[in-house]
């Protein structure tokens, strides 16, 4: 199980830049000042990319932690958080 956790960690690590790329690509493809749908609106894309970038970075850090074996044992008491 510990090995699966570590191997999957690489997947999360790689998935994060893919998500950011897909969002930026989606924005470039769909932003259209003449369009009237939500997906044509640049403000919405800016907001989404702004909020999703730190979330994707979080996924990356999650991947790094998983790879380092940080999730092999989860904390059970306050002292484990020290």
């Amino acid at each position, binding site marked *: 199980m510990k090995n699966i956790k570590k191997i999957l960690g690489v997947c999360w690590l790689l998935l994060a830049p893919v998500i950011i790329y897909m969002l930026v690509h989606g924005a470039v493809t769909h932003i259209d000042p003449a369009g009237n749908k*939500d*997906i044509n609106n640049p403000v919405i894309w800016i907001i989404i990319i702004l909020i999703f970038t730190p*979330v994707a970075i*979080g996924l990356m850090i*999650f991947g790094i932690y998983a790879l380092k074996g940080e999730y092999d044992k989860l904390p059970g*008491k306050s*002292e484990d958080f020290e």
Partner: protein
Amino acid sequence: MHHFQHDGLSFWQLVRMNSSSSRGIRSVIAAASVGTLIEWYDFYIFGMLAKTISTQFFPEGNATAALLSTLAIFAAGFIVRPFGALVFGRLGDLIGRKYTFLLTLVLMGGSTFLIGLVPGYKTIGIAAPLLVLLLRLLQGLALGGEYGGAATYVAEHAPAGKRGYYTSWIQTTATLGLFVALGIIMLVKLNMSDTAFNAEWGGWRYPFWISILLVGVSVYIRLRMQESPLFSKLKAEGKTSANPLKESFRHKANFKMVLLALFGAAMGQGVIWYTGQFYAQSFLETKCNIGFEQSRTIMLWGIAFATPFFLFFGWLSDKAGRKWIMLAGMLLGILTYRPIFNYFLQATDSKSWLAEEETAAMPPVVKMEAVKNSTDSVVLTTTSFSLADGRKYTAIKSDTLRVTSAFLVPGKTILTDKEVATGTYWKFVGLVFLLIVYVTMVYGPIAAFLVELFPTRIRYTSMSLPYHIGNGVFGGLVPFIGLLLTTTYPADPLVGLWYPIGIASLCFIIGAVYLSNKIDENVDD
């Protein structure tokens, strides 16, 4: 209750605590739930009255108003809500749960009340959408702090074996809030004409004003409550956190659990919740073209029948653990979303309805409209039909009249306001019920799960952020990504479901591999 035995309390103090605990816990649940109910009430009235609000504050054709409208909808949910989780989570861990969730309640309800007092765009111009935006941002901020406070407060009062069951009462307020909002709006609407309801100072404002009454009652109840015993103990011992944000997000041991809570539970819970409770309704209305009344009542029956399952799965999570119940809800969504939504489509398929022998309910209404920049006209023929088994629909046929040749080019026929037959109606109710049962599986145990994951001194901060990113960001994006996918791949009407299915799958794998199913008996740490 074993943790109280370490606090140096006498036997009689413990006896008194136990005898009053069941009565006490009911007040604790009521005080916490009434606030989240108001939060839901405010959320629903804004959604239900969106069209009127848009006409009053964000008129079409004004670029600035359109920008403010976008910010009011998207920025409030996506940016301000997680920010509110940080602001009020920190406050809750510094000064206490009771006063923090009192503050979020007043901010939330107060902003709703004030939206009802803002004059329309016609009277004060651009100041109207600006004020509404400001109040929406305040609402988003308060929303970010409310749930974490309520969940922490109840969980820190609950005995170890009942934490899931007691906190699941908070989740039922999502349904209650919906019914209260719908009831109040219907009551106002029934007592006045549409013109009076939609006027600048018309009836649509009453539900906003009523919010202050709900807040008044709720503040009264919450003020009479004591601070959470675990937080009080921590404070008395001088062990509260000096910097909850730093401890939550800069200490690796805790931050890794925040990430696990988000990616292994909250993000999947967010998309399952949004798909069942909101996307299904919009799908029935816009993709299946079911009439307003039927689509609403299908949702209301489904939600009403499924609501007790919040309590059931909360209770079950106390016996069987939180992890697998939440993950089972996600897995069921992953496996059955496409077949369920496909059934909705098949049962309302316009082609098969048109192929059957119909009876016109009334003579057709013909309207002619000029085509922009052309001499041609569009002839719209609207006819209401009924079928032998009780199904009804309105067919709108749009033909083009070529003026030069006086030739009528036949166009498409669109079916709207569909009414399904009684048997199909109840099948739809059953399927919506199933979708909401998935919601209850992921949502019922989540509060207890999050509370148990973090230590008392930084619990409010640590649990609020993943919860609000999961629900506000991942859940809130369901319609936007759905639209994005539908536009990119128009051939598949179910393509929008790949977003919740994908996120739930990702969350399922992370949860299954990394989460523990062990219930933390002692949250007094």
